[in-house]
C-alpha cells in the first residue's frame, strides 16, 4: 500500500474514515469530472454538425480519448493508483494499437474493393423486351467486354483461351472459348451460356453470377459468344429458359445484398 503514501490523507473533505493508505478523492473532484464530461459531450455533438472533413473523426476521437482519460483518472482512480495497474490498462491500448496498425497497413497496400453498388435496383429485362437481349447488340458487346475484363478475364484469360493467371491452379481448367463447341460442358448457345452464368458450373471453379443484373449477364453472354467460333451447340437451352422464367417471375424484388464469396475473392485478388 506504500505506493501512494505521498498522497494519502491530503485534502480530505470528510471525516477521514477509510483504510489507512486508501486515497480518499474529494467529492467535488467527482462532480467537476462529471461537469467536464458533459461539456465535452456537448462539444462532440457540436463538432459532428460542422463539416471539417477528416478532422471530424480526429476531433471526435480526440474528445472521446479525453473523456476516457478523465473517467480513468478520477472515476476509476488511476491518478492515485499504482503503476502496475496503470501499466496493465496501458498495455491493452498498446495491444489494440498493434492490431489496428497491422490490419490497416494490410488494407492499405491492397486495392480498394470495387463498389458492389448496382446501377439500378430493378432489372431492365422484361418479358416484352427479352428477345432484344437475347439477340444482342454492339452496345451489349461493349459492356460485355468491360464486364468480362472485370469478372472473367482473371481465369478465362483476356482473349478467352482459358489461360488467365487465376485459372492456372484450377482443376478442371477454365473453359477455353475457342475450343470446339462439342467440348463445352453446357454448350455455347446464348441460353446455354446464360444458364452457366446463372447457376455456375458445379464441381468446377466456375461460380454463379446471379449477383449481376440480368442485362449484364446477357451482355456477357454475347461477348463470350463473340470469343467462341464455329458451330453452336445448345446443351442447356432448356435450363437457360427455366432460369430466365424464374428470374422474370421474381423481378422487382429486392436485389441481393451480397455477392458470391468466389466473386468477392476474385475482386480482392484483382
Amino acid at each position, binding site marked *: *500500500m506504500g505506493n501512494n503514501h505521498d498522497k494519502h490523507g491530503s485534502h480530505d473533505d470528510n*471525516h*477521514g*474514515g*477509510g*483504510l*489507512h*493508505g*486508501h486515497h*480518499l*478523492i474529494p*467529492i467535488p473532484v*467527482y462532480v467537476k*469530472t*462529471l461537469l467536464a*464530461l*458533459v461539456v465535452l*459531450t456537448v462539444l*462532440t*455533438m457540436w*463538432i*459532428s454538425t460542422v463539416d471539417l472533413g477528416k478532422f*471530424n473523426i480526429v476531433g*471526435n*476521437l480526440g*474528445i*472521446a480519448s479525453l*473523456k*476516457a482519460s478523465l*473517467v*480513468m483518472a*478520477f*472515476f*476509476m482512480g488511476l491518478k492515485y*493508483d*499504482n503503476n502496475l*495497474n496503470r501499466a*496493465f*490498462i496501458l*498495455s*491493452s491500448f498498446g*495491444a*489494440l494499437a498493434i*492490431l*489496428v496498425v497491422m*490490419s*490497416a497497413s494490410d*488494407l492499405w497496400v491492397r486495392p*480498394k474493393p470495387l463498389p*458492389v*453498388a*448496382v446501377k439500378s*435496383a430493378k432489372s431492365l429485362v422484361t418479358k416484352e423486351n427479352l428477345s432484344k437481349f437475347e439477340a444482342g447488340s454492339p452496345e451489349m458487346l461493349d459492356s460485355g467486354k468491360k464486364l468480362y475484363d472485370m469478372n472473367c478475364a482473371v481465369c478465362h484469360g483476356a482473349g478467352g483461351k482459358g489461360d488467365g493467371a487465376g485459372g492456372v491452379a484450377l482443376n478442371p481448367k477454365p473453359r477455353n472459348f475457342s475450343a470446339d463447341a462439342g467440348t463445352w460442358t453446357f454448350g455455347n448457345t446464348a441460353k446455354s451460356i446464360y444458364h452457366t452464368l446463372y447457376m455456375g458450373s458445379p464441381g468446377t471453379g466456375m461460380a454463379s453470377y446471379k449477383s449481376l443484373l440480368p442485362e449484364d449477364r446477357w451482355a456477357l453472354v454475347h461477348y463470350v459468344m463473340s470469343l467462341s467460333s464455329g458451330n453452336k451447340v445448345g446443351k442447356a437451352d432448356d435450363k437457360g429458359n427455366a432460369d430466365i422464367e424464374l428470374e422474370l417471375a421474381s423481378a422487382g*424484388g*429486392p*436485389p*441481393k*445484398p*451480397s*455477392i458470391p464469396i468466389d466473386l468477392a475473392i476474385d475482386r480482392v485478388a484483382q
Partner: protein
Amino acid sequence: MSDSHQHADHAHHFNSIEHEFEAGKLGMWLFLVTEIMLFGVFFAGYGLYMYLYPEMFREAHHELNKWMGALNTVVLLISSLTMALSIAYIQRDQKTKSMWMLFITLVCAGIFMVVKYFEYTHKFHLGIYPGQYFNNPEMSAKFPNIALFFSFYFVMTGTHGIHVLIGMFAIAWIMFRMNRGDFNSRKFAAVEFVGLYWHIVDLIWIFLFPMVYLVV
C-alpha cells in the same frame, strides 16, 4: 494495518485486508484489459470497413438517432458519477448515502436500457436487422451491402447492452450486500470492483457513441 490480524477480515491466503484488496484490484484491471480487447476488435473492424465504404457508412449512420445516443451518453456519465460517489461514501462510512448512489446508478442503467429498447424496436420496424436478416429494399437499392454497417451497430451496441445488464445485476447484488452490512470504510472491495466494471462500460460507450452515431 496494525489490526489486520485480530480477526479474519480477509481470506487466509492474504497477509492483510489491504493485500487482499490490492490483489483483487489487479485481477479486476486484468479483466478490464480483456474487455478493452473485446470491444477494441469491434472498433478496429468498424474503422477499417468505414475506410473501405465511407459513403455507405455515412448514409447508414444517419439512420441512427444521435439525440437518443447523446441522451444515453449523459445518462451513463451520471451513473458513472453516482457509482464513484457510492464508493466515496462507503469509504467514509456513510452507508445510507452510498446506498442511494447505487440506487441512482441502477435507475440510470435502467433508463439506458429503455432508450436502447426504443432504438432497437424502431430499427426492426424499418426492417433493419443484422446481417442476412436485413430487409429494407430502399437502402439495399442504394448500397447492396449496407447491412454490414447495421451488423456492426447491432453487435457493438448489443454486446455493450449485455454488459449494462450484467452491471445492473452486479449493482443490485452490491446493494443487497451493503444492506446486509457487508461493507464499511475498511472493507469495500466488491463495491470498488463493481465500480471499476461499471466505469469501463461507460468508457466503451464514450467511444462507441461518437464512432457509430456521429463520426463519418
